[in-house]
């Protein structure tokens, strides 16, 4: 399908071939290191995109209803947020530099084309960082409460815009356009076309909605857990109702974005959809395979087969022709295990919609009890599960474009660094992430354990206790 892949020899610096085990090892280690950095960073990036929205909503309701519970909620969330922001910033810096350190040949070529969104991402991040600093230290500084609330706007814009710009870079790597390759150099560059590539709209939509959704579920999980442990006061009940409503709205958005993404894949990256769905023969009325296992002969067993649904997913009609994996040369097919990632992501998505819908239904239905134990435990599970779905989704998206780093133009193996010492670096970073991960959790728990919400409410808003 991609005949231009033969021009790849041009990327081979000074005619070196990449045969031989030692080089292959360094490619593999570069991949592993990049994956671990991203897998770790994505947790904090997702929080970074989702959290400002949730804080802004809570503060908005608090001011609007003149309800100190929500104001305290916003404050406590913001306090925990500072810790995750710190880890997010440092791991983001790491991935930014690792791009050049681990994939120098890739950056030499693609750097010319993706410089613009990378640059814009930094600006958005800068903008956010400035206002986040102001926001966190001006809670009691302005006379009007709304003045402080308005600081939320640049933070939300900055965090979502940086997600947008960096996602266009990833989208570009999936569906590159806006340049031509000549002698291993990019020419005829159109930076805007490269940013607004076919993958951009669905990817950005999906990234933003799932980040908002995940954050809502994580905060809901914390509230639900508090209620379960201490039978919770009004503070936690309000928090849970608010976060679950937001979670329902955002997860419906995420489902819509997911559906549009599948349609995008069917049209522009059929090999990713086909590998994820174990779909080998090009056909109409293609079956959707849910769960199941596959053996080395590509025989599928234990699956649930939904007749015609893959066609429906790909083009809203059972007559849509879905391209199968057999249409692609063997060395250009993504690994088949990404099916499990796809299943995991979609199942968790379904569970999220179900549980948030059930909660809102029981709450609005006068006779229901939305605070019943099994449901609360379900919500507790939904937080970490949502984050897991983010990881599954990204692994699916990234491994699904293997073996390409720049789909159709450059394969992973030609892009990796040829410097020595990658294995050592990998071990060092792994230790770093392990340490940061553990400390982050420890610090966060300690931060809130000794300062229960009720006590803080009394301290901060002393006159308010009469209301309850």
């Amino acid at each position, binding site marked *: 399908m991609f005949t231009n892949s033969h021009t790849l020899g041009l990327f081979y610096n000074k005619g070196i071939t990449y045969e031989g085990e030692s080089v292959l090892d360094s490619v593999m280690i570069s991949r592993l290191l990049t994956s671990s950095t991203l897998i770790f960073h994505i947790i904090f990036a997702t929080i970074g995109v989702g959290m400002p929205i949730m804080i802004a909503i809570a503060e908005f309701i608090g001011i609007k209803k003149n309800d100190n519970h929500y104001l305290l909620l916003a404050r406590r969330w913001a306090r925990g947020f500072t810790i995750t922001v710190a880890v997010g910033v440092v*791991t983001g810096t790491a991935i930014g530099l690792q791009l050049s350190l681990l994939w120098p040949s890739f950056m030499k070529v693609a750097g010319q084309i993706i410089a613009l969104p990378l*640059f814009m991402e930094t600006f958005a991040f800068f903008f956010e960082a400035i206002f986040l600093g102001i926001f966190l230290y001006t809670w009691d500084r302005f006379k009007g409460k709304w003045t402080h609330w308005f600081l939320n706007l640049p933070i939300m814009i900055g965090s979502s815009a940086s997600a947008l710009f960096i996602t266009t870079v990833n989208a570009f790597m999936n569906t590159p356009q806006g340049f031509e390759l000549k002698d291993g150099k990019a020419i005829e560059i159109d930076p805007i076309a490269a940013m607004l590539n076919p993958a951009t709209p669905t990817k950005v939509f999906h990234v933003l909605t799932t980040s908002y959704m995940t954050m809502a579920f994580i905060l809901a999980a914390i509230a639900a857990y508090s209620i379960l442990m201490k039978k919770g006061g009004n503070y936690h009940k309000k928090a849970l109702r608010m976060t679950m409503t937001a979670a329902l709205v955002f997860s419906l958005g995420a489902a819509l974005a997911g559906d549009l993404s599948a349609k995008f894949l069917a049209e522009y990256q059929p090999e990713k959809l086909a590998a994820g769905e174990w779909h080998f023969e090009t056909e109409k009325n293609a079956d959707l395979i849910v769960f199941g296992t596959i053996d080395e002969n590509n025989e599928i067993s234990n699956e649930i087969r939904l007749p015609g649904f893959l066609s429906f997913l790909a083009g809203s009609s059972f007559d849509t022709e879905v391209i199968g994996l057999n249409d692609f040369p063997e060395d250009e097919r993504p690994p088949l295990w990404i099916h499990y990632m796809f299943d995991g992501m979609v199942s968790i998505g379904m569970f999220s919609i179900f549980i948030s819908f059930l909660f809102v239904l029981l709450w609005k239905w006068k006779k229901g009890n939305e605070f019943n134990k099994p449901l609360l435990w379900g919500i507790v599970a939904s937080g970490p599960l949502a984050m897991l779905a983010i990881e599954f989704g990204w692994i699916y998206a990234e491994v699904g474009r293997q073996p390409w780093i720049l789909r159709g133009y450059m394969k992973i193996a030609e892009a990796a660094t040829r410097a020595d010492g990658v294995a050592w670096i990998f071990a060092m970073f792994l230790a770093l992430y392990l340490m940061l991960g553990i400390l982050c959790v420890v610090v966060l728990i300690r931060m809130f354990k000794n300062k229960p919400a009720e006590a803080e409410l009394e301290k901060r808003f002393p006159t308010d206790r009469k209301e309850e």
Partner: protein
Amino acid sequence: MSLEVIGISVLWIFLYGYLIVASIDFGAGFFAFYARMKGKEHTMNALISRYLSPVWEVTNVFFVFFFVGLVGFFPDTAYYYGTALLIPGSVAIILLAIRGSFYAFSNYGSKENIGYLFIYGATGLLIPASLSTALTISEGGFLKETDDGVTFLAGKLLTSPYSWSVVFLSIVSVLFISAAFLTYYANRAGDMASREILRKFALFWSPPTIIASLWVFWSLKNHNEEHFMNAMDIWWMFGLSLLFFALATWLIYRRKQFGLAFISVMLQFFFAFFGYGASHLPYILKPFITIGSSVTNEVMGTALIIVFIAGLLLLIPSLYLLMRLFLFDADYVKGKK
């Protein structure tokens, strides 16, 4: 002005910005730990964290901005520096990561934990040392390009007198810049006890700063004569730098005009840094990358400059607001807000 000159100027301005704000931050970490050890934390550490808390993230962005811009304007740098700096670069990232997150852990999470503060202080001195290797490498002589790709001659770097002079300069400058700023800040806060300690620091670190600068010149002459001669052509920039250094030290010594003293320190480093940068050209990485050969294509370069200007229109007012609220607001500085 041509695209490459604009590009490199933009980058150099941001690197200079990082040099100043990061030095304050790095040095502050060291002083905070020192004060804790001496049992003077209550005055000085409150002062330091009042300044650092709202701005520490912004510091980091200056750096990110620099390397993203560098790869954007000069994509070839990604290939050479990327390959050469795999190990020193990764070490710097790890140190930065530890430092950034430990700041948050110790400041927001667990104030009583001295381990976090120690690591925070120690990394503040190791990071400038590891980052300065990138500048050293740019002088040439530490990379070898063969058919196999680019090799970093780590042994050569570790035994080079020039390399050590740069490392030494980076560490003492960090302590000097930081002390000069914090003296000013303490003075504004009316915190005379901290001011006196920090003033002593500033005076203590000023002779090593100037000795290290001269050492760098001397070893540059041996390492890269061409660069040294270029620097001599614009000797007046380094002369101005020395003049501002003298003014700053004198003001701090006489306990006068700490604000002006810090501005002099900024100008001292401005002239030294831009003099260094200007005499470094046309090479970005000798002998592989010159600014003419590696500049990005025109369309992308123009797009980057447009975005850069638009970005500045957004950032300058925001930075002004940040400074007004936390740096120039007397009540905040004094801890009343």
